[in-house]
């Protein structure tokens, strides 16, 4: 979407608008609805007005708003994702304390995290976390469980087979499909090239 040409146009327009605002403040009585300098010819005025209304304003919104939300989203994703993973580590350390191997403890952790993700989604809590966490709540395995429950729950009225049973795999389906394919490919490559 970014356009250098547009940016130049915008900068020129923005300067004009700024100057007009200053003028307006100095000379109060002028009722300036338009932000077009009167020393331009009518064709240019019309052209400028059009651009201010459409492109420049959109450019302004796009340039200024997403930048702050981008940073905010990333920090929130870091915090929420970090907290979920820390919870996983706590569970893993707990089971390691029982003398389970790293692999066994990891499996139990995944099992419990999947349960928690599914259960919190059912209660409606995970969606609230997701509102703030963004990718921080999607990427952990709890988000995988969330995607399964959320879509299955949504289509319950279509029945247990074609509703819940089928929609369970709305997002999980592609994940498993590509996951299995890449896994088999890696296995085959390893078999033939080592």
């Amino acid at each position, binding site marked *: 979407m970014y356009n250098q040409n547009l940016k130049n146009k915008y900068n020129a327009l923005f300067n004009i608008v700024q100057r007009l605002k200053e003028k307006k403040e100095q000379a109060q009585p002028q009722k300036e609805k338009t932000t077009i300098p009167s020393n331009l010819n009518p064709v240019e005025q019309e052209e400028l007005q059009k651009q201010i209304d459409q492109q420049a304003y959109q450019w302004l919104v796009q340039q200024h708003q997403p930048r702050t939300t*981008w940073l905010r*989203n*990333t920090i929130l*994703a*870091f*915090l*929420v*994702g*970090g*907290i979920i*993973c*820390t919870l*996983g*580590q706590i569970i893993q*350390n707990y089971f390691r304390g029982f003398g389970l191997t790293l692999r066994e403890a*990891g*499996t139990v*952790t*995944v*099992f419990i995290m999947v*349960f928690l993700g599914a*259960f919190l*989604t*059912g209660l*409606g809590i995970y*969606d609230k976390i997701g509102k703030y*966490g*963004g*990718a*921080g709540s*999607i*990427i*952990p*395995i709890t*988000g*995988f469980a969330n*995607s399964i*429950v959320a879509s*299955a*729950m*949504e289509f319950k009225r279509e029945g*247990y087979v074609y509703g*819940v*049973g089928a929609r*369970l795999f709305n*997002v*999980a389906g*592609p*994940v498993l499909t590509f*996951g*299995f394919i*890449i*896994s*088999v490919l*890696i*296995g*085959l*490559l*390893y*078999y033939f090239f080592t």
Partner: protein
Amino acid sequence: MVSLLTAFVIGGVLCALGQIIMDFSRPVVTPGHILVGYVTGGAILSALGLYQPLIDIGGAGATIPLSGFGHSLAQGAIASVKADGLLGAFSGGIQATAVGIAAAVVFGFTMAVLFNPKG
């Protein structure tokens, strides 16, 4: 305690990275794409031997994100090929992730039946 901190940081960074990808490729990349991308990306990194170091440092911070799921798929396939040969390529990855997948399906179904969508 150190393990908790490293899990927080590694897990957080993996999630923040996903958020950046999503924010800068909106609306092309959806959460579904992110999940698929993380699983396949994690599997490829793992096959190249680049993911294990991340797990050594971050523990659950690297295994809980879906890239860890990809790692299990890849390592399972490789281990099975070593033990069983060609058929292992087909069984290994799914065996290694079977608990997670079965749990997700069973719990997912149960919760979807028990609860109704809110709002």
